[in-house]
């Protein structure tokens, strides 16, 4: 077959470029066993085990206690740990640099990642809500779905900002180690799954103002029908701080 190597430059329209990148991100994500374990299997396991832990949790509706924490955990695993590790290695292998020089552009890369994470989180949400419903969980009538949506958006922005800050500053291996370590620490002591008032006294007030604490407590408030305004404010501050830090310190290579 002959190949016509004469120049005929031109960029594909931006929606096709963006969509091509989103599909690429999702394909790569779905192929990585450790990422699926982290973002899908672990949250599902916590949900299922938690639904049987009525005596441990001293409640007759354990899913009401566990589901909000699991949703927060799933969000952190995707928009923080998975994003940080993926971006860290993309930076190391020159993927960010290379794609930034194609018609995708750095902006397209950023938006493509954001959209891919949003879609992946949609899948996480469907799975977790689906399994919870099968296990017998029912939403309360006074659950504010608007607050839930705001928590997801602001939480994702804050954690994605922190993830990019990590990935854009450290070597890929350090990012890998830190992202996993922080995920484990945050799940155990960060107010994600375990509510802040069950944490040891000196830790509790600190955790309440951390992004993990604000997200976890926010989720629990929303599903208990309580206002989540304070938690939303905390997450907004974190999203802005992380975003500004990224603008200042993120290195493409």
């Amino acid at each position: 077959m002959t190949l016509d190597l004469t120049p005929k430059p031109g960029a594909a329209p931006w929606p096709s470029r963006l969509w091509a990148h989103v599909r690429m991100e999702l394909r790569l994500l779905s192929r990585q066993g450790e990422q699926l374990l982290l973002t899908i299997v672990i949250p599902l396991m916590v949900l299922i085990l938690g639904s049987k832990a009525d005596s441990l949790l001293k409640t007759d509706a354990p899913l009401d206690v566990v589901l909000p924490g699991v949703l927060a955990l799933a969000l952190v695993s995707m928009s923080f740990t998975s994003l940080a590790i993926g971006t860290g290695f993309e930076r190391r292998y020159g993927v960010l640099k290379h794609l930034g020089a194609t018609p995708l552009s750095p902006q397209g890369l950023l938006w493509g990642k954001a959209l891919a994470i949003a879609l992946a989180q949609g899948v996480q949400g469907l799975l977790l809500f689906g399994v919870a419903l099968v296990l017998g969980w029912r939403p309360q009538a006074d659950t504010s779905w608007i607050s839930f949506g705001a928590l997801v958006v602001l939480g994702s922005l804050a954690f994605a900002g922190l993830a990019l800050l990590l990935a854009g500053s450290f070597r890929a291996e350090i990012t890998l180690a830190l992202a996993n370590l922080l995920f484990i620490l945050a799940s155990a002591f960060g107010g994600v799954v375990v509510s802040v008032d069950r944490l040891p006294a000196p830790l509790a007030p600190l955790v309440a103002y951390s992004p993990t604490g604000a997200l976890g407590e926010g989720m629990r408030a929303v599903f208990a029908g309580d206002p989540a305004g304070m938690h939303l404010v905390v997450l907004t501050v974190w999203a802005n701080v992380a975003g500004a830090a990224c603008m200042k310190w993120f290195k493409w290579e």
Partner: protein
Amino acid sequence: MAKLERVPPAAVVIEDLTIRYRKGKELFSAVDGLSMTMNAGEITSILGPNGAGKTSTIEACEGFRRPTSGTIRVFDLDPVRDAVQLRPRVGVMLQEGGAWLGVRAGELLRYVASLYANPLDVPALLERLDLQDHAQTNFRRLSGGQRQRLCLAMAIVGRSDLVFLDEPTAGMDPHSRRATWDIIRELRDGGAGVVLSTHHMDEAESLSDRIHILKDGRLAASGTPTDLLRESRNPLLELSVNGELDLVALARAVPELNKVVDAVAGLYSFDVKPSTEIMARVASWCVDHRIELRGIRTHEPTLEELFLSLTKRVEQ
């Protein structure tokens, strides 16, 4: 009558470019007052030892870094400010790859192709680069040479009119190298500008229409390969004999051979304009003195020798 010369349009014009980095407390000039052009429809090689400023210069042309001072125009546009217009027109092949390890070769190339309006046919390009049997192979499992070919494919799949290739044949076997050279020539013949950075002097000599040699961030020499070699030095006369030559006796018999450039065990080079007449006198002198002459030839200057002499390190 005035000779009509084809003047190729400039793709890249660099004027008085300086790029400085901060290294700890020191300010270090990677590029220092560099001016040069690279034309469309030509292959331009940028040569220089490591640290001469090649990568900094090329990366500034690609818009990856801003000049400290001076200007770069790519198709009369600014590589940083006009990046949106330039990205489809400039193909980039990075030295370190620029690919996900977990991506399949065919999938990656299809993805990059989909970012452009008129991409090359992906199966045909894979076949041309002898990658058709590896379309399903993960980047991680490709050999060094296969990776290089795939990265070359990514740089040209968008049919850009300027292509930057950073050491495109590093790690390739001789067959792939020749195939890559053919592709680079075809790109040029089709009207694209190709900018090549390489450490292979044979590659630069056989491919380039124009060569820029950098040293310490400055232009050390510039021109077509023929011009550079013509200006570099005279051809040498080289003798190889079994045993040792009495150079003094030889110079008495053939006075033209008084400038010895090199003399190592049986191999002698003389700075003299070689001629059949001189060669005949040398041969007959050898016969008279019972010296076993193994070879007598002219040694044309090579780009490698010119490069080494131009970029010689000054010992401190």
